[in-house]
């Protein structure tokens, strides 16, 4: 049965636009069911703000099932809040208790400029994918899907990496604002598969260099892995680094992989 939490003190970042300097504002949530999700708690807050003729808090969200990667939020300094491997939208109020102070901020990273309040612009992630995060296979003419058997272990490892939802928590959690976990995850997904071999080194070089244009550099803190709602393993970064080093050699010599 549901219980109710009382008297939550919310400290929320408000910023009217990219050029505004922004500030924290305090709100009190008198009562909320512990069955409510964290974002439903914010919905209730926003209904109340509209009732008082005030501007509701802007935040990104959509699927509320932990899969679209749209939600974000630093909750008490943790990307996606206190529950491990859980996106903000899947976090429920039963993780908190009456009287708690909850500080809510947007992702903070120079590559993710703030649009308004808690909403940021993550399109730098799209730039990384556009530069090489794909297998060139124009529609039509693909061979039969069972032509190339893929060992289950390989398919599973590719799947582990491809579960990344593109949320940006790894960047937000990183003291350097690096996007190595995100980029490594995509590189691992594609580079592990037989279909991904033809473009392996070209892909790696292009993606890593695009990443470097927008994001900070990785100094192996490992905060990203801890924050990732999909438990993407930091091993993908090692794989990316290895393939990147190799790509510098191979691409220079223009050796295409056989």
């Amino acid at each position, binding site marked *: *049965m*549901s219980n109710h939490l009382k008297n939550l003190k919310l400290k929320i970042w408000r910023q009217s*636009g990219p050029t505004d300097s922004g500030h924290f504002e305090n709100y009190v949530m008198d009562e909320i*069911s512990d*069955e*409510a*999700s964290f974002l*439903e708690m914010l919905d209730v807050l926003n*209904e109340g703000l*509209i009732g008082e*003729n005030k*501007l*509701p808090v*802007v935040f990104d*969200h*959509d*699927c*509320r*099932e*932990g*899969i*679209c*990667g*749209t939600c974000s939020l630093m909750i008490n300094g943790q990307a996606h809040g206190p529950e491990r491997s*859980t996106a903000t939208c*899947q976090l*429920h109020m*039963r993780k908190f208790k009456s009287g708690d102070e909850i500080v809510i901020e947007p992702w903070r990273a120079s590559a993710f400029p703030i*649009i308004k309040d808690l*909403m940021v612009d*993550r*399109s730098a992630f*799209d730039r990384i*994918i*556009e530069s090489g*995060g*794909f*297998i*060139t*296979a*124009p*529609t*039509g003419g693909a*061979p*039969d*899907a*069972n032509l*190339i*058997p*893929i*060992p*289950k272990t390989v*398919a599973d490892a590719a*799947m582990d990496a*491809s*579960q990344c939802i593109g949320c940006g928590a790894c960047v937000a959690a990183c003291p350097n604002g690096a996007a190595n976990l995100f980029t490594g995850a995509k590189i691992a*997904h*594609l580079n592990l598969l037989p*279909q*991904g071999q033809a473009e392996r080194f070209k892909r790696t070089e292009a993606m890593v260099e695009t990443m470097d244009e927008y994001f900070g550099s990785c100094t192996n803190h490992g905060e990203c892995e801890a924050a990732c709602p999909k438990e993407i393993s930091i091993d993908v970064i090692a794989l990316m680094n290895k393939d990147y080093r190799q790509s510098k050699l191979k691409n220079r010599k223009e050796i295409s992989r056989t």
Partner: protein
Amino acid sequence: MTITFNSKIPAGAIGDKWATYKEDAKLVAPGNKRKFKVIVVGTGLAGASAAATMAELGYQVDVFTFHDSPRRAHSIAAQGGINAAKNYQGDGDSVHRLFYDTIKGGDFRSRESNVHRLAEVSVNIIDQMVAQGVPFAREYGGLLDNRSFGGAQVSRTFYARGQTGQQLLLGAYQQLARQIGLGNVRMFNRTELVDVVTVDDRCAGIVTRDLVNGEVVSHAAHAVVMATGGYGNVFYLSTNAMACNVTAAWRAHRKGAAFANPCYTQIHPTCIPQSDPTQSKLTLMSESLRNDGRVWVPTNADESRSADQVPEAERDYILERLYPSYGNLAPRDVSSRAAKRAVDAGLGVGPLKNGVYLDFSDAVNRLGKDVVEERYGNLFQMYERIAGENPYDVPMRIYPATHYTMGGLWVDYELMTNIPGLYAAGEANFSDHGANRLGASALMQGLADGYFVLPYTIGNYLAPMLNKPIPGTDHPAFKEAELAAAARYQGYVDIKGSRSPDYFHREVGRIIWDYCGMERTQQGLEKALSELPALYEEFQKDLRVTGDAESMNQTLEKAGRVDDFFQLGMLMCRDALEREESCGGHFRAEYQTDEGEALRNDEDFAHVAAWEWTGDPTKSVRHSEELNFEAIHLATRSYK
């Protein structure tokens, strides 16, 4: 505009139609393709695949989504799988069987020619997605694995853990991203379509609103594709993402595109029941769980023991009892009604007695926990996060929720609406699922439309337009639509009433769910049709949107969407009222067999209802397209 319904079904035997069509279709030469601008709205499976493929072919493509990235489209949330008639399991599957299952599953309310084509191209989809690196589940030998879904007696469903939609969408998104990187596609994120523009009875382009700064702008094109998803959020609580809405299709409808079968909505049997009033959405538990989970309720309405304490003899495995040959894999509409009846009879389980059990204890005993975890681990985790209970120990509680909408923009064989140059693909059209969609067939249809149908059919329309001028955005029709759209959004801000868009959304949703949900009656629908206009009037007088129309304003976005849901809701109820039969997801209590199954009326209703907008949402005009069954005989749908 007078409406003409020419479904343009090619002549010939059912298996030859698509080949014949492709042979006869007019072509645009490769070098000429870049002279054509095509707009694609939506980046779900249908939109992303269509846009990427057309860009590869050489068309100039502009793509729009209200999301912050094309990768977020709601297709990402599909869990269970995608069908294809590959017959990799050698269990007797074929194009014909998939075709038959889809027609039967749709309760004989879909167009044979479209469905057959869908079954034909299904096999290409799997090849295409594997080539792009979609990590489908595999057997130890390295070949692709399959599972079964409701409404089929073969294993034809391909899957990637419980995240098939995510993996397929990422595949299509990456292909689209490649075209963006190459400069062949211009991508407009956080941009919402707010109107469709027609000039001389032809679609000339669209009007959009930039969600970040409120700017309203026109875009002209030779052709426009709507791949904007379904309208299940009209119910307020559904398994759809929060932002899913009907605005794009509805605005096209208001400009003359017929809206077909709006009352055909699908209720999914396995969702987590609502737990408290602040709930904003319902979460689906994939249908694949019914492969190994058994649905039951206690036989005693006053049962108070925990599930594991209830002896076998005091459990009613409702689906296994009612539908022995399909058992727990009976189709969605049938399974949903069985659950609803059990709960209505007071046999519901859980604190609010609003669910039925989905029990895995037999599967865990038979297969071991590891195998169950391998198959459903992430779904079990998701359940535990939301419901706070561990399904390995305690059976899941599930209840039906709105999930998918079969109705949508009317399209012909070429996926063109009745407005020349305006196409609809994916869940946004009404095309392939009749009155009920089978599990794992929406992903198939979205990708079929985008990869293997539209890129062929669109050329047939464009070819004769080569080197002919089209109206630009300086045309008065665009200016007029821009002014109207800007005024519409400013209008919501100016009402300055007392209630938020969410308040009204919840209220519309409640009316539609109560009267136009799982079970409908004449009386209920008439009640809805008297309550909705009154509530709509209140919305127009008492809405409150704080903030302005010139900056990021999520309340304002919501207001526009809720406005369109009101109008659609009225049409749904009209459609449900006038369809005096039960078929698939449309269950009219007055029309049922002695055993409580849907009773179709083929004599009077073997047709598509296509509605024409008249300017008043309560006075739309109903047209019909007859459905002819030549390859398959109309039969009573039975899953006994």
